[in-house]
């Protein structure tokens, strides 16, 4: 059984979280993600969960830390400067191997920046702002439907690998309304024998902790975590690759801008320029191998981001100098048009850029 509903991206992710068995949501108001705490304040209790509007983003992520330590599926959400504040908590969640989902609806920066859509938080999401050796899986949906599917998946991945997972959308997707197919879904909840849920009468006591004063001990913990990362890199990478043999250009974009790129590709086709889209769905793990194995017909790669160029560094690492890489971006909340991208791509194709 499934039903089709018209939903805003932000609200659809909430619905997905509740479907996925999220029992705790902690948030703090910040534009453009306010529909998330609003939706959760209305629906968490009826689904047997808890909602707290925290006093800050820092408190919210630490509430997630507490709820996750206790073994329940927990989520927080915020936008760029708020995600910056959560970084300490994210590092602690990683350091204590706690699962949770963080929805990041990004806006222009740096500083207070603006409230319009941006992708300038690619580094913040994939490189982390917290201290220490770590990565977290980052999903970048490009439609409301996909934001539902990937939010559900994020809870599964978080529990499976005991890691925070981020769903990164730009403000555009958060605010956009689209029809969504809601399928029947029953979450599979796994045992969490490590949880500090006050059940030490029935097992040995549990400790949730990221402190290790012994250097060798901490190294060992980090090495073990990176073994887990190896597994994630091997199995969890997601990418949508439309580049066909014969295409002379690959255009790379993630999130909603990838849809603008698809329109640009249509314009280019009318001009006789064959281009294909590559859309990384997981930003970490990044689909490097896709870029290492492009058809030989590809003469140029154009990376399009709503930023000054951040993902382009990963594209470079994937391409490893085999193809020339070009960039087109708008920043500060300005969204590029298909025509702008087509114009840039045509210049690149002519060898002019």
């Amino acid at each position, binding site marked *: 059984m499934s039903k089709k509903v018209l939903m805003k991206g932000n609200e659809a992710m909430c619905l997905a979280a509740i479907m996925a068995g999220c*029992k*705790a949501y*902690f948030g703090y108001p910040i534009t453009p993600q306010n529909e998330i705490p609003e939706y959760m304040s209305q629906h968490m209790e009826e689904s047997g969960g*808890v909602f*707290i509007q*925290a*006093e*800050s983003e*820092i*408190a*919210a992520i*630490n*509430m*997630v*830390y*507490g*709820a*996750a*330590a*206790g073994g*329940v599926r*927990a989520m927080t959400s915020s936008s760029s400067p708020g995600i910056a504040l959560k970084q*300490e*908590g994210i590092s*602690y969640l990683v350091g*204590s191997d706690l699962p949770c989902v963080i929805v990041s609806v990004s806006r222009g920066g740096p500083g207070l920046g603006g409230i319009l859509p941006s992708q300038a938080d690619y580094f913040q999401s994939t490189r982390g702002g917290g201290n220490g050796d770590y990565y977290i899986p980052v999903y970048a949906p490009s439609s409301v439907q996909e934001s539902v599917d990937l939010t559900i998946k994020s809870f599964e991945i978080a529990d499976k690998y005991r890691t925070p997972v981020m769903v990164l959308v730009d403000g555009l997707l958060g605010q956009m309304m689209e029809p969504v197919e809601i399928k029947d879904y029953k979450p599979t909840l796994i045992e969490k024998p490590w949880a*500090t*849920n*006050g*059940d*030490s*009468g*029935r097992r040995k*006591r*549990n*400790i*949730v*902790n*990221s*402190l290790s004063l012994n250097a060798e001990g901490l190294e060992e913990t980090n090495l073990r975590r990176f073994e887990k990362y190896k597994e994630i890199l091997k199995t969890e990478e997601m990418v949508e690759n439309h580049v066909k043999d014969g295409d002379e250009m690959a255009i790379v974009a993630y999130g909603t801008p990838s849809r603008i790129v698809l329109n640009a590709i249509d314009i280019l086709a009318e001009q006789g320029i064959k281009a294909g889209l590559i859309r990384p769905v997981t930003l970490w793990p990044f689909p490097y191998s896709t870029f290492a194995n492009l058809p030989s017909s590809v003469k140029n790669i154009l990376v399009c981001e709503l930023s000054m160029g951040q993902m382009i560094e990963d594209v470079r690492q994937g391409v490893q100098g085999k193809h020339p890489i070009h960039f087109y971006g708008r920043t500060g909340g300005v969204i590029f048009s298909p025509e702008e991208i087509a114009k840039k791509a045509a210049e690149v194709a002519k060898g002019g850029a």
Partner: protein
Amino acid sequence: MSKVVYEKSRGLTDVPMFYCPGCTHGIIHKLVAETLVELDVLEKTIAIAPVGCSVLAYEYFNCDCIQASHGRAPAVASGLKRTNPDKIVFTYQGDGDLAAIGTSEIVHSAHRGDNVTVIFVNNAIYGMTGGQMAPTTLTDMKTSTSPFGRGTASSGIPIKVSEMLSQLPSVAYIERVSTHDVAHVRAAKKAIKKAFTYQMEGRGFTMVELLSSCNIGYGVSPVESLSFIKDAMIPYYPLGIYKDVS
């Protein structure tokens, strides 16, 4: 037949404590542990200790434990307790933690009336990092970052946490006690027991502030540090119940 007058509580593990000789953290740990055993809730308790001297408290309390980031324990407690309402949750925080970096979290946990217990250990100094000035450091008191004595013109007048938090309407119970002699230690235990009992009854936010010592930080002997609590701290931080909903 011999009767046990005093023995180590099973609420504590066998791990030797790393606290400095004569540090009253050890006494306070014992009071909390004994209380949890006497109330028969040890096995359903989760202790949360953030950064500071008591960062290793998870090694000592014989129950589930969470180590939290500096100042954030009350937020962690909120998230945990709301999702495990039938369990006992307490934070164990020093004054550098609770009264400085963690002011936002403690104020709002109290403001929300979270049904948790806060064990607030106030020794008027940062112990772990080497005896720096805390918001609770007494006026004119010398520390490693107030070498000429705490100047109120630049650093303000020491913060009175119990008085401040007791103003919040959602708070159920706040008492300030001391650890400088046996009679006061016994009274401290009574207060701790009351706080946890209130939590078991679902009355809301409870906090016990324990005046404690840091003889290394003060540069005196352990015994002299007890006199410091009695003669210097208590006159500025009066003992007593600041809020009690009963």
